[in-house]
């Protein structure tokens, strides 16, 4: 499926050593292209390490808006001698390798079908900068400068960005601008600029922003009114909290006396994930909107208390930024391997609500929705994100907030309500969604009850009687089923006459949509359905039933989405074929296209 690169249609990969400051230079390039109004994406493939190991950054420029990961690289910036061999090998035939020519390249790194662009970056920086730190850092900006020239990126935009970034530090601003220019000039002087593939300004990104999912989720939690957080650091979820705290500092401080500020939030770095979810339960029980964010290992540890929350009906929002499992796995690689672990978390009969955003925009909206769902259904709600969404910058439509939004705090009885009641029973008088009313600590004595994870009846009293126990757990099952009508509905895109259906979830979205276009070019028309929540809508069953063949595309080994669909919608397993991609990198369209075509051929 190799295609020739062209104007606004190519991909580059930058190979660096982590901890050397390359991420900023790479981000600078990607953001500049964004500002030129051209669809672009950046994928940071970094190691679970602080300094000294290989790290890559991939930039894909695609005027048609396909910003899923591409597996073809037309230009490689090879800045890491450790990985020279594999980096050179991975350039598409006819492509380019930009390398630091301060040292000669080994002979065996020379490929006949590839063009080499040697820039003496280290030497240049040694010459132009004096401090050791600057010499290392500026190499990155210098290669960025060369790329600006080679790819026809708007130099003014890059300059402006640098100026904004270093607005408060003149020295740094100046040396960055100098390094940029150095690289730019050396490229213009030595290479045919621009290359055949290049960037051409468009007007595309006007209503878009460039944001990562962890930031977006933090924003969602801020806007939803979350006040209490218990959390424990873990890659790739940590930045949700870094961002949430930073946002709170900006928007949630109250001046209680002149110059005296207090916080409208309380973020507690817990001793572990069990404590983190424990704090969330305590806070939610007490009536606050509370959440935690974690990754797989944290979900495993939270299992017991998630069951407690389910059974006692306490709201909780848990953000799971998935990484590669099992166990510690690959903490800086992406996967969708926690779906089952979240759906049925905890021993005994338990089932939870999950919302599954596809990109940072949805991540923001679903984070807000999660709090409403949690309080409406008085139960844990997972926001199932992943490392690709969470830690990469995505172009998404700008976020908007409806200032008339009224949160759904669910059925909570306050003193006024209690005053009109003869007696309050925690788990009695369910509504149409099988939800019963709760009271909050501090409310009138009439509303006081003793919440417990042990067997209880509809009055909230301890019980070991079958009938009384069944009443409660059967209602819980019905309540969960009801939630299917309130969670984000699946997203369907149909093409007339399609007999093939592609079902997917989360961050696979863009790759699958691109695949649909590529498949159409090959004469295979496909409909698209993206599952956006659990419990599942019945329309998913209809979708599967109404297609001759259905593919379920997901990023885990065990076909977790397909399994969950099978069980929960009573689908015939044979009606779906899995496409599984779980090596730890964001999905690309070609993987899907190849799998679908291969299957079509066989059948």
């Amino acid at each position, binding site marked *: 499926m190799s295609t020739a690169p062209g104007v606004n249609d190519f991909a580059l990969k930058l190979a660096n050593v982590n901890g050397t400051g390359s991420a900023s230079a790479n981000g600078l390039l990607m953001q500049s292209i964004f500002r030129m109004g051209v669809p672009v994406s950046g994928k940071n493939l970094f190691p679970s390490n602080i300094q000294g190991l290989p790290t890559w950054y991939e930039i894909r420029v695609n005027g048609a808006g396909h910003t899923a990961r591409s597996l073809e690289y037309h230009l490689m910036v090879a800045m890491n001698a450790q990985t020279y061999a594999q980096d050179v090998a991975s350039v598409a035939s006819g492509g380019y390798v930009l390398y630091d020519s301060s040292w000669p390249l080994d002979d065996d790194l020379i490929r006949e079908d590839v063009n080499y662009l040697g820039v003496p970056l280290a030497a240049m920086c040694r010459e132009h900068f004096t401090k050791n730190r600057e010499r290392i850092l500026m190499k990155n900006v210098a290669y960025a400068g060369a790329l600006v020239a080679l790819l026809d990126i708007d130099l003014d935009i890059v300059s402006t960005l640098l100026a904004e970034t270093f607005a408060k530090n003149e020295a740094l601003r100046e040396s960055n601008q100098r390094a940029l220019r150095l690289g730019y000039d050396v490229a213009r002087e030595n290479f045919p600029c621009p290359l055949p593939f290049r960037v051409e300004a468009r007007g595309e990104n006007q209503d878009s922003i460039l944001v990562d999912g962890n930031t977006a989720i933090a924003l969602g939690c801020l*806007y939803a*009114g979350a006040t*209490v957080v218990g959390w424990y650091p873990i890659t790739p979820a940590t930045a949700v909290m870094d961002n949430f705290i930073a946002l709170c500092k900006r928007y*949630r401080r109250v001046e209680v006396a002149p110059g005296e500020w207090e*916080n409208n939030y309380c973020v507690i770095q817990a001793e572990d994930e069990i404590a983190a979810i424990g704090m969330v339960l305590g806070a939610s029980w007490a009536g606050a909107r509370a959440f935690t964010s974690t990754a797989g290992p944290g979900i495993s540890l939270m299992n017991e208390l998630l069951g407690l929350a389910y059974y006692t009906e306490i709201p909780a929002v848990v953000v799971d930024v998935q990484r590669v499992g099992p166990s510690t796995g690959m903490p800086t690689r992406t996967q969708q391997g926690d779906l089952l672990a979240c759906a049925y978390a905890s021993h005994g009969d338990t089932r939870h609500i999950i919302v599954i955003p596809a990109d940072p925009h949805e991540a923001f909206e679903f984070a807000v929705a999660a709090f409403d769902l949690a309080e409406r259904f008085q139960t844990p709600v997972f926001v199932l994100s992943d490392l690709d969404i969470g830690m990469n910058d995505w172009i998404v439509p700008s*976020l908007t907030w409806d200032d008339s939004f009224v949160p759904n705090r669910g059925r909570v009885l306050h003193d006024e309500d209690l005053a009109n009641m003869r007696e309050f029973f925690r788990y009695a008088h369910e509504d149409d969604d099988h939800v019963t009313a709760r009271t909050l600590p501090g409310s009138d004595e009439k509303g006081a*009850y003793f919440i417990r994870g042990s067997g209880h009846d509809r009055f909230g009293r301890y019980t070991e009687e079958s009938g009384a126990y069944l009443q409660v757990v059967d209602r819980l099952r019905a309540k969960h089923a009801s939630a299917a009508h309130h969670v984000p509905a699946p997203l369907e895109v149909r093409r007339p006459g399609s007999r093939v259906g592609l079902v997917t979830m989360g961050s696979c979205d863009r790759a699958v949509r691109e695949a649909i276009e590529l498949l159409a070019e090959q004469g295979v028309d496909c409909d698209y359905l993206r599952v956006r929540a659990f419990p599942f809508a019945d329309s998913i069953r209809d979708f599967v039933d109404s297609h001759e063949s259905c593919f379920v595309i997901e990023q885990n080994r065990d076909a977790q989405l397909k399994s969950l669909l099978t069980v929960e919608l009573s689908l015939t397993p044979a009606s779906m074929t899995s496409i599984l991609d779980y090596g730890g990198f964001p999905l690309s369209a070609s993987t899907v296209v190849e799998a679908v075509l291969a299957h079509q051929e066989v059948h």
Partner: protein
Amino acid sequence: MPSIAKPRIPLAPLAHNDLGLTIRDYEGAMSTLCAGCGHDSVTAAISLAFFELSIRPRDIAKLSGIGCSSKTPTYFINGAHGFNSAHGRMAAIATGAIAAQRGLHYIGVSGDGDSLSIGLGHLSHAIRRNVDMTYIIENNGVYGLTKGQVSPSADVGSRPKKGDPNVVPPIDPMELGLALGATFLARGFSGDKDQLVPLIKAAVAHRGFALLDVISPCVSFNDHEGSTKSYRFFREHEVHEIETDFVPQRAEIRSKISSDSARAVTMHDGSVMYFRALPEGYNPTDRVSVEAYLAERKAMGEVPTGLLFLREGAPDLHDMSGTVSRPLADLDLADLCPGNDALQRLQESFR
């Protein structure tokens, strides 16, 4: 129940407190613990302390983990909200609740297993955070609810009903608290209500984490005479069948701890504990001297009781977090949501 008459929690005469409430307003459901269990005495002392403090039931929140001890919040102050949570997790859950709703008096009740085994990490970190609550360990040296295994507070050589004598050195919650920078450490005995009630009141009054270690004997799993280590299928044993399912009614142990000398109290298992109230002039604010005193008494085989350590004025969780004085749970979205204009401005930096 014809066979076992459960004593109602003993009550003071029906006096009224400053709120015009009687002790009945501080009662809970009927206890289902074993007759004579020390925990019931602690329950009664808690009721009495809050009654005497004239705190409205609705202004109290009671939390616990899992264990016989952790069942007890059902047995006091019906009008207070309660949370019988999971084994060992109460300290973390209470921390979250307190972060959200600072307007209440929080009392946590736990056991030595709940707090010092599975919950040790959470307890320790709640101490560090100086979470504003009263935390009572009803300490009986065994896992009562799971039928008598040794707990981490069991002394070396103490012999559980089943199994071998304990060989692992105990954790003394008071020593632990000192090492972790606790701000309020006290020890009481379930059998001495005169001392216990004021200690609970002091703990409630303390701003910060008040850790109260209450020695509270378990009648069921400390009542064996001699060895009962044999098991059902061996049949070499004597009365195993009966011992495992027969719980004799025991009287509660009561003893007033005087301040001048150590008082010997015979426990249900026949062992003797020596309780000593703190001497006159004891300085609970000097950690080094407190540590030395505890070590000295321990060497004598005595268990000092009273307010062992106190540091007032230390920042609590809310001080550390800089939270507003209005409870976070009481804030509305209007107080919290920056609105669309702010969102649009913010997004300028996302371009």
